[in-house]
């Protein structure tokens, strides 16, 4: 069995650590690029959302490198993501690829027994003892969490750094170096080193950079390729950004949601605007907008793939948040046709507008 996983931001680094730790054979698909998207959009149904197309591209590229089993998480609606596995399976079979799917779904939909059976299919292919397997899993989670915190730090510091581009360079180096490490232990060490380096970046403490929150649909904000590297672009412009939705947040949220202990802050913040969970991360999107306003951000950028059902609802609500709180929100819709120039222009105009608001001369010419 040679397993593979689709890309989602930095998850591939943690996935590598997990499979190395377990001693399972694996293929990490080539990093997302135009190629993956082109393969994906060629075979996908036209109106499906962008993540589906990119993920299909990942699968095909991984299969061509020898993968025969895909591990992917599921969900049970009402967002389309839950149907991805079914459609991917059928599409790949029709294209003549012989590939197995292990779908890690919520126990309430498939039952605890089925979930355990599916998980053990992965675990059984590992020659290690039970304790070592748990250790590998915990190490992978630790790596994910470290990566997320390093990324958050770098995004925040980008506005304060004395030498422009330091944080972005360190972040990219960190990803590459960690990925090239052989064992999970070495990865964790490497991450700690980079964490310290980012902490030690010389900063201008008097700087007062623009602060923008990146909110919206979870895949498109976490996977940099799908949002045309918006966070890197903002870092280059010397803007501090924050994004609450991360892979480690998702893990925590999913584990705590049966107990209703998940993200109480976000739920409380969204109560005035969207008191019900309507699927996807629409409620989180509204909650984050309110929370970023509360923590003194200048504005927020919402990113979602064309046709995303939950985010369309939040897009309707965000103007009310913007009006009530005097908090500008820019919405960017991405799909395989998004042109980069228009995209950059809109981000730049938004940043300019936020800057002018600070000097209170928006109303004057």
């Amino acid at each position, binding site marked *: 069995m040679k397993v593979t996983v689709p890309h989602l931001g930095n998850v591939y680094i943690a996935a590598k650590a997990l499979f190395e730790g377990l001693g399972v054979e694996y293929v990490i698909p080539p990093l997302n690029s135009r190629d993956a998207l082109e393969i994906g959009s060629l075979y996908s*149904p*036209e*109106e*499906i*959302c962008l993540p589906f197309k990119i993920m299909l591209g990942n699968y095909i590229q991984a299969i061509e490198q020898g993968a025969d089993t895909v591990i992917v998480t*599921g969900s*049970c*609606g*009402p*967002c*389309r993501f*839950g*149907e991805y*596995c*079914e*459609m991917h*399976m*059928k*599409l790949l079979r*029709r294209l003549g690829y012989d590939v197995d*799917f292990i*779908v890690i*779904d919520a126990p309430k*939909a498939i039952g605890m027994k089925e979930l355990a059976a599916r998980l053990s299919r992965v675990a059984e292919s590992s020659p290690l003892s039970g304790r070592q397997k748990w250790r590998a899993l915990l190490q992978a989670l630790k790596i994910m969490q470290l990566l997320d915190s390093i990324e958050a730090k770098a995004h925040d510091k980008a506005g304060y750094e004395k030498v422009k581009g330091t944080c972005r360079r360190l972040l990219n180096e960190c990803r590459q170096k960690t990925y090239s490490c052989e064992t999970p232990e070495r990865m964790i060490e490497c991450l700690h080193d980079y964490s310290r380096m980012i902490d030690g970046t010389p900063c201008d403490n008097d700087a007062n950079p623009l602060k923008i929150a990146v909110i919206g649909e979870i895949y498109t904000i976490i996977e940099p390729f799908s949002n045309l590297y918006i966070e890197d672009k903002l870092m280059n412009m010397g803007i501090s950004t924050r994004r609450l939705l991360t892979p480690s947040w998702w893990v925590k949220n999913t584990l705590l949601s049966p107990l209703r202990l998940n993200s109480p802050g976000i739920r409380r913040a969204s109560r005035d*605007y*969207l008191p*019900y969970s*309507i*699927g*996807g991360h*629409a409620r989180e999107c509204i909650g984050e907008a309110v929370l970023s306003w509360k923590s003194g951000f200048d504005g927020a950028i919402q990113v979602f793939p*064309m*046709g*995303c*059902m*939950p985010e*369309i*609802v*939040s*897009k*309707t*609500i965000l*103007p*009310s948040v913007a009006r009530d709180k005097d908090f500008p929100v820019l919405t960017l*819709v991405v799909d395989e046709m998004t042109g980069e120039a228009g995209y950059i222009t809109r981000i730049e105009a938004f940043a300019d507008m936020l800057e002018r608001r600070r000097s209170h001369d928006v109303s004057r010419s």
Partner: protein
Amino acid sequence: MRVGIPRGLLYDRYHPFFIRFFSELGAEPVISPPTSRAILDAGVQCCVDEACLPVKIFHGHVRYLKDKCDILFIPRIMQLRKGEYICPKFCGLAEMVTNSMPDLPWVLSYPIYATSMKNLRRWAQETALPVTGDRKRIFAALNAAMREQARHKTGYDDKGYPIKVALAGHPYNLYDKFINMNIKEKLNRLGVGVITEEYVSDEDAAQEVKALFKKPFWTFARKTYGSVAALAARRLVQGVVYISSFACGIDSVIIELVRDRIGDFPMLVLKIDEHTGEAGVDTRIEAFADMLERRLGHEGHRSASGQCVYSCQGPF
């Protein structure tokens, strides 16, 4: 007290329930007129651009009712069956409307979980509050409304046409004659009868759904996929006409699943949005009807040179 009920989305399916419920309570239901160009335009003006056509039309109906009622009723249908949902836009419908239109009257939008009588009673109590607090009266109204709804039947099953097709899609696309440009009449005029999912037995549909790896978690996806697959697999129809609104997330999944299941079986997908021209739709329906007719061999399926143009020995 006048309660405004917009004639949009699932109105065609559940109007007896809602109208009876409010009139039993002593309120006066005010219903918007059937969808028209004016209503669509009003909806397009205030609704968010990315929304699908039926949601935009719903906004138009609300805009019409805005000044003509004291209370506005927006059904927030969360679940019709346990473990199944509808589209996320239904769950957030009230927020979509209230945030895109100013000066709305009081909006009733308590979530509807039609999964148990207990949940429905709770909904009835919350919803009836501005009209009456009398529990006995509310439950009597709920029961009367449920009886009324049970008598209400939708769906088509035409008899006596040489060709029959499965007419599939969301109920609001099938029964709103403005949205679908009266497609049933158009098909009938071309000698094509239609059958809808209501006339497919639950067992047949369930059998098809069971063959899937994962049970679809949308009520409409389950029913539509199951019934279209059952009709096509049992050769009870000669083709499928699927009416889908542009950028409908659920349809993008159902159509793909249906295509995978029925293979080469004829299927026409009509995409509709606010720009759809009637002439283009007519042409496509006519071409589809012609093609079905030829497949049946009613028309000369031999070309002038005597060679068989169309082979009937395909998988279907």
